[in-house]
């Protein structure tokens, strides 16, 4: 995306830290809400820097999986480890979470919202410089002083992405972050995500209902059904990937067939 690169000539990581990536390990993870068993004995390992997408029918527990990794839910059994450390309570700076809605604080200007993703206590000038860099990376260099109410849905989600990546987190958790966007904006955001992931090298775990999105972005696509992983599909296509390619279409067919057969 030319405008993004021109807006940010030094496209290194947004902080001075070297790019880092976390591993994620789930061991016999279970979660039940009351009588309803959502995840059952699910085990999974994610390598540092890997991009993993999780697909599944709605209600299959894929969002719960993500919320467990983020520490927003407490497992009923098993463990979650990020970089070898068990997750207890909110995962904090080790991971950042992007939601389906942008969840910007309406009473903070765009750059103040981005600053939420940065450690508190930074000098003002440094903070502003870092938030401006983060906004430039997502293609919104000139909206830092705006109120969120003035932004479009796609722009809000870009700000949310800038907030999530501002402190160069080792793990980015994405809970259907593009589900509410129109097709064109979604395609733009997918390219942006792919670029930022390649530049910064963080580990990414994406939950989506969009099979094509999963195949465009991920190294590996997992299908969750009845609370466990029923398909583990490596995506060996070269990057950057193209939406129209025959290989992608073939994989999409495979994945859709598996998805439609799920729960039967």
């Amino acid at each position: 995306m030319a405008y993004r690169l021109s807006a940010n000539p030094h496209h290194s990581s947004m902080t001075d830290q070297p790019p880092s990536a976390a591993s994620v390990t789930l061991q016999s993870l279970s979660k039940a809400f009351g009588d309803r068993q959502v995840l059952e004995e699910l085990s999974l390992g994610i390598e540092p820097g890997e991009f993993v997408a999780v697909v599944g029918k709605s209600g299959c527990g894929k969002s719960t999986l993500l919320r467990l990794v983020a520490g927003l839910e407490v497992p009923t059994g098993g463990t979650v480890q990020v970089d070898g450390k068990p997750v207890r309570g909110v995962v904090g700076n080790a991971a950042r979470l992007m939601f389906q809605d942008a969840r910007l604080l309406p009473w903070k200007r765009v750059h103040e919202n981005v600053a939420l993703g940065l450690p508190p206590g930074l000098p003002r000038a440094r903070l502003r410089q870092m938030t401006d860099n983060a906004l430039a990376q997502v293609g919104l260099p000139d909206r830092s002083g705006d109120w969120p109410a003035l932004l479009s849905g796609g722009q809000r989600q870009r700000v949310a992405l800038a907030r999530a990546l501002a402190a160069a987190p080792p793990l980015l958790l994405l809970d259907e972050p593009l589900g509410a966007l129109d097709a064109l904006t979604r395609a733009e955001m997918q390219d942006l995500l792919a670029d930022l992931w390649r530049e910064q090298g963080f580990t990414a775990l994406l939950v989506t209902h969009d099979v094509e999105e999963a195949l465009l972005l991920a190294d590996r696509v997992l299908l969750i059904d009845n609370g466990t992983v029923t398909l583990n599909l490596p995506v060996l296509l070269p990057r950057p990937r193209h939406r129209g390619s025959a290989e992608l279409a073939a994989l999409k067919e495979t994945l859709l067939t598996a998805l439609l057969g799920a729960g039967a």
Partner: protein
Amino acid sequence: MKSPTIPLPVRPLRISANRGRDSEHPTEGAPPAGTERRPPRAAPRLASGATSWLVPILLLLTWEVASATGILPARILPAPGSVWRAAADLAISGDLWRHLAVSAARAVTGLLIGGGLGFAFGILTGASRFAEGLLDGTVQMLRTIPNLALIPLVIVWFGIGEEAKVFLIAVGVFFPLYLNTYHGVRSVDQSLIEMARSYGLGGTALFRQVLLPGAIPSILVGLRFALGSMWLTLIAAEALAAESGIGFMTTTAREFMQTDVVLVGTILYALLGKLADSLAKLLERRLLPWHTAYQPTPTTRP
């Protein structure tokens, strides 16, 4: 007097916001296709402004004519001119300002004490489930007592001095501020709180950056209800017993059948109420610059 119920926080904001923006939103009653979509902004607003003054001016003229011809005896309603002269006399002698200062001081003291307590308790029960369980039921029960019903008890407790008046006003403003603060903190979007927590905000940081700013629209609605309650209680308290203040001024004037001074007092109450409401509106604009109601039409796409 009844304590106000909890309104939707956005409603008064909308009202104030729409005042200057009607011509920017031509969706309702839009002109038919082919006609000019946006008429010049100044013309219709000026016209409607002038129209709204028409009836008051006509009433004032009728009043003046009725007084001058003797249809309306000065004992019932003195002429506008003599009301104006009474106000001028009171202003020159300094009585007007003395009474005004005393009344305003009572109102502000009561508002600060009762409003401050209402705000503090509202924050407490809004932010803490324990405090809610402990206090909210009791407060909701006490809320049903009209504060003017306390007058006999207040006289027994405080006599008829300043404390009694300030106490009544404080009680009158406590409940609207308490209710709307509590409601405001409670109705902050849960998804925003979850987001803030996942970004490591907790305790005071969460309160200062998420709960309080999210509650402010509702708190300001509470403040405007409290102001209404404040003037009403002040009038009742000053009519009851006082040695100074606008209420004292009008009560004394009534005893001497100075209807013009009574009217001056009545108009003063109205002006003070209007002034307080305008200040509250100003405060809304200062505290809620982010609110959609105070922003230009949003741009939808870059």
